[in-house]
């Protein structure tokens, strides 16, 4: 996923009805001033011209068959019908679903577990460890992908270590990224590596905010570590969980950078993802209308997932 640092908040703003405990009204002194338009205008004009307007164009384009050069022909919903009939598209979404296990589920589980264990004792030098744990997220995807190309190489560290302990037979002849069976999980492990540090730090920060009295109460009740986790830690982290879940799921849906660098969707189509399909239809195959339709569909899926996840998680929390 695009590391896309903070932009986190994007996740929770849409479809969220959560009322945050805020001592402030929605709009401050609420002075009525037309001059507000003037302040908003520069950003809005730019934003509208290069985001909203192209969105409209994209919807229009999605009803055409167009090679990008000769005049296009109107085909109605044909490009959208492809979404259900074209096996290449289905394959991309199938891969993204599998990647979610690595990009979303595993980092969250691992992060929760580690945060629960680590939070029981104050760690000195936490700042230093936090910096290290953040590095995979901070450094450009392209760079980390290059690092993992080396990791997965037939002569790379993983292969070398396996050979050293006599398990050289496990090393695929083209490396993990070049093997039909292992390429997708290999991309997944890369994603897990990129995400788990962020999850851990976010959850650790969240745990610190849980009042100690809740833990004390749980201990007085004779709760063991596991019950304490489910009774105190997990409920205390529900907001962080919501953020990470929504973010990582929509991030995975848009996965592109590492696919481009690590595997180019290959071998064959073993690691093809929707964003990569859009890119290659636009530039390599001249199927511009289809690329536009796929982009719109991807957006609608992202909207729907964000909305549904936020609603579900909030309803769960209210119970």
């Amino acid at each position: 996923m695009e590391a896309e640092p903070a932009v986190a908040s994007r996740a929770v703003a849409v479809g969220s009805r959560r009322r945050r405990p805020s001592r402030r009204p929605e709009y401050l002194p609420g002075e009525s001033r037309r001059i507000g338009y003037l302040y908003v205008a520069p950003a809005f004009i730019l934003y509208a011209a290069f985001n909203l307007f192209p969105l409209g164009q994209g919807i229009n384009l999605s009803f055409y068959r167009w090679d990008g050069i000769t005049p296009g022909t109107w085909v109605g919903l044909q490009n959208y019908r492809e979404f259900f009939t074209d096996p290449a598209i289905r394959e991309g979404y199938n891969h993204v679903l599998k990647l979610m296990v690595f990009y979303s589920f595993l980092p969250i589980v691992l992060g929760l577990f580690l945060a629960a264990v680590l939070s029981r004792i104050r760690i000195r030098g936490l700042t230093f460890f936090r910096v290290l744990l953040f590095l995979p997220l901070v450094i450009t995807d392209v760079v980390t992908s290059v690092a993992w190309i080396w990791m997965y190489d037939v002569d790379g560290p993983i292969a070398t270590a396996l050979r050293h302990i006599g398990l050289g037979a496990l090393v695929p002849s083209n490396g993990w990224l070049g093997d039909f069976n292992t390429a997708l999980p290999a991309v997944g492990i890369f994603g897990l590596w990129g995400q788990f540090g962020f999850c851990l730090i976010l959850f650790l920060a969240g745990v610190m905010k849980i009042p100690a009295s809740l833990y004390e109460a749980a201990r007085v009740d004779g709760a063991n570590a596991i019950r304490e986790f489910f009774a105190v830690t997990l409920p205390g982290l529900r907001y962080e969980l919501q953020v990470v879940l929504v973010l990582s799921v929509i991030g995975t849906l848009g996965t592109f950078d590492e696919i481009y660098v690590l595997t180019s969707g290959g071998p064959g189509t073993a690691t093809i993802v929707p964003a990569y399909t859009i890119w290659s239809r636009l530039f390599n195959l001249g199927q511009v209308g289809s690329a536009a339709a796929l982009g719109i569909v991807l957006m609608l899926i992202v909207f729907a997932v964000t909305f549904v996840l936020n609603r579900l998680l909030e309803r769960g929390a209210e119970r």
Partner: protein
Amino acid sequence: MNTTTSRLQVTMNYLLIVLCSAVAVYPLIGILLASFYPAEQGVSPSGFGLPPSFDWQNYVTAWDQGRFSEYFTTSVVVAAVMVPASVVLSILGGYAFATMRFRGSKVIFYLFILGLIIPTEATIVPLYYDVQAMGLIDTYWALIILEVSGEVAFGIFWMRAAFLSAPPSLLEAARIDGASSWRALWRILVPFAKPAILTLTVLTFADSWNEFFLALVFTVNHMTAPAGLASFSGKYTTQIALVSAAAVIVALPILIVFIIFQREFMRGMLTGAVKG
């Protein structure tokens, strides 16, 4: 007995966090070391042990022949224009949404919020032809304009929250003084929101430096550092040492900014994540 278990637990905890950190940095340290391996010889970096000698040749090759001096310049120019522009526009917009009421302000704000989750893939196809029609393919301007227009959605969201956290009395005082809205912003609110602005600046720089998709689509010769690295790595698949040196060059600026501004970075990423 209690003390021994807790000492055991302390040790375990440190082992655990050291292990996690090691996993996080190992691939990165790995390519750092790999970058010093001689390019030609058959000695390939296996990830264990140090390079035979610390040789800067790969950096020289990547910088000159690999054209990373050019890619680097592109990234620097784009960031140097894009970051201030985006931050200023975000301050202006965030200010209006936080302190003023005007017809349609809610709708406009929600349109910006929508921008937080519109994937680039949804607009990239028409954008390509728009940018082409404007004659901006393969220019700095294409990247600058598109990056700013993408970033202001988050920036406005962020600055609005920052200005909303200002005590109302602050603005009240300015109003009583008869200060114009422009003066009130730059004299009172901006100094108040300095930490938030610094955080936004750092994050915007990171986004700009790490941007890959736009650079891939819109540039041919004037590639940014990450796009240059992707094409370089595709070309020299067998020369791990050389590609690693290029990767280190690309990672270095963001690494330096991260280390200097780690507090802002973390705050941005963590509170940015949890606020909403």
